[in-house]
């Protein structure tokens, strides 16, 4: 009986979530749909980071670089090969996944701090590398869809899908969050199953995992590759929304932003990540709304991050778990 209630509650939550997703654009301005779409792109990248850092314990401070790989793959395919922007997303994810795999290789030798610094170094170096290979990447000017390939931009001026016509902003919102929901669902399946247990065992104790027969090398590199795919897809969507990319689109600040989103959302759990994505999307704007006096937005931004971390050291996910624990305990124990 309680189990049925538990399942019922769960289903109701999922349905409510889907309803919010479908109907939200009609309650916010057309313009805000684009902000929400960008939050969605961050959300996908944050899931990726959570998989490798929260679940597998491998610290990555370079996810902005993996987003950049995905974003540039999309940009180059659109501008140079004349692909339609949306069809580049899978390839962007795969490319970033491969790079993620390569990034995972040093993880076999480095741990903790050193791995964090190695990934940090990658994120710092990537903009310079992009600038250097300018004949390939467009250099400091980057790639601008509206200037160079306007026909490949989906939805410009409005679009009709499945009989519904909608603005470009709404289209981007639905595109991003559909992919986000699918990605979330896949991640949820993953962490519930054997792969999730393997990841967590590596996080909790590498020695114990290895002596239980876990292939450390395979697990770590697969985790990195998987998180790379997510970051690449997030980066591709980010570039598609902005219709432009250049070396400054993905500086170390983006890596930091994704990390903040993952930690605020809650490492090692999935449910709080949406909140983490909304936090990093809206905090900068809110900081500027407090005051535009020089220095105040930066101060407010930093202070907000510190306060959230002090109040919620395990992030929103941790809070959610603490809150629903009495409920799940009640639901799943025999009376």
């Amino acid at each position, binding site marked *: 009986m309680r189990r049925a209630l538990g399942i019922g509650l769960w289903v109701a939550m999922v349905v409510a979530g889907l309803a919010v997703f479908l109907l939200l654009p009609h309650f916010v301005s057309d313009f805000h749909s684009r902000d929400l779409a960008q939050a969605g792109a961050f959300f996908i990248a944050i899931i990726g980071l959570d998989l490798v850092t929260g679940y597998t314990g491998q610290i990555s401070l370079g996810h902005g670089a993996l987003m950049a790989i995905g974003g540039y793959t999309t940009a180059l395919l659109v501008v140079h090969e004349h692909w339609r922007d949306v069809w580049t997303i899978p390839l962007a994810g795969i490319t970033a996944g491969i790079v993620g795999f390569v990034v995972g290789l040093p993880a076999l030798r480095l741990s903790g701090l050193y791995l964090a610094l190695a990934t940090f170094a990658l994120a710092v170096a990537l903009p310079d590398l992009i600038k250097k290979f300018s004949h390939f990447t467009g250099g400091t000017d980057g790639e601008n869809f509206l200037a160079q390939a306007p026909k490949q931009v989906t939805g410009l001026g409005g679009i009709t899908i499945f009989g519904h016509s909608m603005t470009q902003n709404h289209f981007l919102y639905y595109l991003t969050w559909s992919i986000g929901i699918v990605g979330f669902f896949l991640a949820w399946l993953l962490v519930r199953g054997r792969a999730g247990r393997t990841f967590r065992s590596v996080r909790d104790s590498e020695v114990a995992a290895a002596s239980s027969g876990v292939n450390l090398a395979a697990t770590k590199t697969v985790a990195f590759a998987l998180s790379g795919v997510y970051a690449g897809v997030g980066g591709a969507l980010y570039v598609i929304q902005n219709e432009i990319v250049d070396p400054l689109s993905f500086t170390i600040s983006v890596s930091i932003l994704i990390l903040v989103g993952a930690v605020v959302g809650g490492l090692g759990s999935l449910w709080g990540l949406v909140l983490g994505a909304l936090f990093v999307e809206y905090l900068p704007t809110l900081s500027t709304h407090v005051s535009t006096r020089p*220095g105040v937005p930066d101060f407010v931004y930093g202070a907000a991050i510190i306060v959230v971390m002090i109040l919620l050291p395990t992030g929103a996910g941790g809070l959610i778990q603490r809150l629903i624990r009495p409920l799940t305990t009640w639901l799943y124990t025999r009376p």
Partner: protein
Amino acid sequence: MLFAVDWTQLAQQTVIGLSSGGTWALLALAIVLIYRSTGVINFAQGEMAMFSVFIAWSLVDHGLAFWAAFFLTIAISFAGGVAVERVVIRPVEAAPVLTVVIVTLGLLFVVDGASKIFWSPERRTIPNAFSTRPIDVAGVAFSIQDLGNIAVSLGLVVLLWGLFRYTKLGLALRAAAANPDESRLLGIRVSWMLALGWGLAAALGAVSGMLTAPALGSFDQNLMQPVLLYAIAGAVLGGIESPLGAVVGSLLLGVFVTLIGTYVGWVGTTLRLPVALAVILGVLLIRPTGLFGRAEARRV
């Protein structure tokens, strides 16, 4: 082929590399100190150092003599470091490492924002601790400032070494960082040891800032941002727990980056940093704890 090299140019660029590395070494020392006493990389170390420079500037601007301002700034920065640890770090002392990292990132923005609230963004200078008169030795030019920065770094390394090795306080600091629970059982006030570590690092950062600003000609709120990157790289190269490693690593990094930028055409200036980071990565893969680091024994 060997004799086709312009030896003077090579020597000059090497000296320049040592000079650049010397400015990074001071900040690298602060980073190592924080890591060693609290187990955290403080991403806000550069901004805190920059804030100290502005304090020094304000003191001089209000009429204080340079050296008085210099030491007063160190004292103020020490107090500031302790205060920051008490207010911002203490609440998350027991939290996961990444949470603390995020807090230091938040601190970076807070300090940066505060510096922009109190001081306008125009370029300023502070007086030079050392002379910049050019000295010429066999066609290679440098100045007392270059030597001074390196000398101060090495002097601080000796001081830190003495502190950690030969004083009770240093022992308590190391114990608190290595094993907080057991240290408490021994009566060490672990919390205050962490605060002390932050205070010392902030003081070191102040020295770093006050010597770096004249070395780079002028300063504003962005002073330490590129330096932080190189300082972390230098510290990691040398072994993140070793003060001597921080200095040697930064000097080596400076020379390497300068020579590579000068002599390898396709690297030029754009790829100096990525190449340097790639080399550091390579070093870490061979020696995961850096040049001077000791291998950690971990409890299984």
